């Protein structure tokens, strides 16, 4: 009887503590609900769950994420064969390219397409981005899927998380003979997600409970920390950070550089020009750090790398956000617009002819 009473007290205290934590979080630290729905693709990496429509909400924005039946972020499907007179730009990246925390009309891909069309370039932008992707997964998606859509230009994003993602995925390794494919498959968490989604109450819990989201984030970060040896910001490091020294993450490894080189080679072999677009990270509203700081100078100076840092610096303001601050720090509509403008400028300047920009303008003039 005594044991039963004690168990009752412990259970009651546990339930009360969970409710307390839920209220605490809602009042003092509301969570961002940024679900991602990915499944394992047959070619061994993740893809967006086809036809899935879901909402992301944070204390500062709400966005609807819609996937077409091909798992691309779009409202319509794309035929494998290019429509006549249309050029295609295929973009490969992570949640920044996918457009997390913004609606479709505010995403990078949308702005890029609109920019190009406004400049008289008849293009379609196909968004192959998947949240959590590193260069290795982008490359696999390009090879197995993207090239089938006959792109004329291929854009890979480069974010400072890519080196860690590339290492973790284990899809490729670098040895004396160069870059080698290793594992055929890397689809983390998709199995778990599938199982979880079958549990009753999981869906409402994961979309409404701040406690669940907070614990999941903490747990994920803890595991990541353990896997990467637990990075700690020392006083010295934080001093250097304030001086904008690129000391926070290790530079890109030969593996990363090999992956970029292979992506370029693969694209060019399929007659598509290749670009590497910098996704800067944000420190505060007026301080951004280029992801290219991890790359060797030779690569930064190459004609296929594009960075929006100048645009970001010109547009920065303490009163306006280029990145969300209370979610997962993705780009705001304005941030996406600036990124797309920079990319569109480069595309027009570098291959306006290839993308029929001038022909279209000429036709319009006629």
């Amino acid at each position: 009887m005594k044991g039963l009473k004690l168990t009752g007290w412990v259970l009651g205290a546990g339930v009360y503590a969970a409710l307390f934590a839920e209220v605490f979080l809602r009042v003092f630290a509301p969570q961002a609900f940024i679900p991602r729905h990915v499944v394992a693709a047959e070619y061994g990496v993740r893809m967006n769950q086809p036809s899935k429509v879901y909402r992301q909400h944070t204390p500062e924005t709400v966005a609807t994420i819609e996937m077409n039946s091909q798992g691309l972020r779009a409202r319509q499907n794309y035929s494998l064969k290019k429509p006549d007179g249309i050029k295609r730009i295929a973009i490969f990246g992570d949640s920044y390219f996918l457009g997390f925390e913004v609606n479709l009309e505010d995403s990078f891909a949308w702005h890029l397409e609109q920019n190009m069309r406004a400049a008289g370039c008849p293009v379609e932008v196909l968004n192959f981005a998947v949240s959590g992707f590193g260069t290795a997964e982008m490359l696999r998606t390009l090879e197995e899927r993207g090239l089938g859509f006959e792109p004329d230009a291929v854009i890979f994003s480069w974010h400072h998380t890519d080196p860690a993602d590339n290492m973790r995925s284990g899809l490729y390794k670098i040895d004396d003979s160069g870059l080698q494919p290793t594992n055929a498959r890397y689809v983390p968490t998709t199995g778990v997600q599938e199982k979880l989604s079958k549990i009753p109450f999981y869906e409402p819990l994961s979309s409404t409970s701040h406690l669940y989201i907070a614990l999941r984030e903490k747990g994920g970060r803890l595991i990541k920390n353990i896997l990467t040896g637990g990075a700690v910001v020392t006083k010295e490091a934080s001093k250097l950070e304030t001086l904008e020294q690129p000391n926070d993450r290790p530079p890109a490894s030969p593996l990363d550089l090999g992956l970029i080189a292979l992506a370029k080679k693969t694209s060019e072999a399929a007659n598509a020009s290749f670009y590497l677009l910098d996704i800067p990270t944000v420190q505060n509203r007026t301080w951004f750090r280029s992801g290219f700081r991890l790359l060797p100078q030779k690569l930064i100076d190459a004609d296929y790398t594009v960075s929006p840092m100048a645009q970001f610096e010109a547009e920065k303001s303490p009163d306006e956000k280029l990145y969300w601050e209370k979610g997962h720090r993705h780009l705001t509509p304005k941030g996406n617009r600036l990124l797309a403008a920079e990319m569109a400028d480069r595309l027009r300047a570098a291959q306006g002819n290839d993308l029929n920009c001038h022909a279209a303008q000429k036709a319009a003039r006629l």
Partner: protein
Amino acid sequence: MLFNSAIFLGFFALVFSAYWLLRQRIVAQNMLILGASYIFYGWWDSRFLILIAASTACDYICGLGVAGPRFARFEKFKAIGLMLGVTILVTLPNLSRDYLILCGGIGGALVLAAFFFGLEQFSGPVRRKAYLTLSILLNLGLLCTFKYFGFFTESLVAAFNSIGLQVHAPMVHILLPVGISFYTFQTLSYTIDIYRKQMKPTTRLVDFAAYVAFFPQLVAGPIERAKKLLPQFQTPRVWDGDKIQSGALLFLWGLFKKIAIADNVAPLANAAFADPASTTPSLMLIGVLAFSVQIYCDFSGYSDMARGLARMLGFDLMLNFNLPYFSRTPSEFWRRWHISLSTWLRDYLYVPLGGNRGGKIMTYRNLMLTMLLGGLWHGAAWTFIAWGAFHGAILAIYRMANIDRGLASVPARSGQGILVHGAAWGVMTMLTLIGWTLFRAETIGEAWTAMALMGEAVTSGAIITTLPMLAQTKTLLFYAAPLILVQLWQRFSGELEFLVSPLDGRSGSMVQRFAHFNVLLAVLCGAVFLAAEDVQEFIYFDF
């Protein structure tokens, strides 16, 4: 290995379990503490263990030497054995890299052995003094070499260059071993206390080594005197559920202060001090206020965690902070801030210099010297010396003006008392902020710029017009609010150990227990969910 890391929690769980499984076996428990402490310390860089072993070996023998009577030769072999053993153990795994350190360690052990045997040629008071001198020279020598070598050489070179003599500094970069300022002060106090006949030396090397390296307080204090802590290693520790629970709660509150407050306000201070010349007056004021919160929560948080961990192992460490921001005068501040250091400086520096026994001028001189050296103890930089000089000066001025005595004569609870004590508190708070500006700035020039900006914030009225509107103000208030509330409660209830106080008490009413449970949940939620994403190292690890 930081207290606020997952790896430490795992480490402590193992040590804690093994430690209490060994209860009633005091030698085994002390050996476990010693081993765990060496692992904990070696986690930063195992080669630093040689220094701690050298300091331990030297002061173990010096303690026996300064006591007076001759002691067994075996003790010397034990001490040298410890130093040699540690040197070999930490250098063997990477001998090709560390062979010079191995040679240095063996050479150092041989030199120490020569000293130990050489000093035995003396007798009586000379022998006692010789051992004391050896202890002081070795400890201060370690400190000067590893902490101040670079600073002194750079300053000397700058001085020569300023008078037109082009001198180049030797390119020697010496790593600062974590916690060296803390454990050298502990071992120094051991030999000095024995010399003063305030305690007897121990002949149990393991106990002494465990006292020197005791991991809860090894790297950032409190600086425990041997006469208080060492006897605790020599008496059985009894499992006491209440004590363990209170230790865990003290640890939790310290953890909360560190990860939920200090680390979250740190970016505000970092941003203001990154380039003071391009910061606005309001942001500088916020930065200084943020730093005052950060340094208090960082350091007192560490002290609370250290005391909590020690308590869970059955030890009592001294109180290191006693609501310092309620101080009304500089002397009160130093009775409340980093108490273990200020009392150390008082007992081993201020009093031997003559204290207040040599007239007013000598008292002011002694205050200045003590605070200058106290400032230098914090770090090898002119800003720390300026900070020490500033505190020395205000201590002397307050003493000159007899302000402490004047305040004591005004009852705090009267109408006049509230005004007078409130004004004194306001002035002291401003002085404290000025002090922190010197402490946080990278150079004296930056400190001046920062102070000028703070002055501008006050005189231009920005403190009223701009400051309340800033997002940074809201951030600071959000994170500092729990601290302010708890400190007010502590001040007026007289309970210094928040969460651990008998507020809950098994004897308390149901309502009190429920209230305590909710406070506990709030702190726990804060520590888990408000913890800053960027884990910052403890500020005092650099000292």
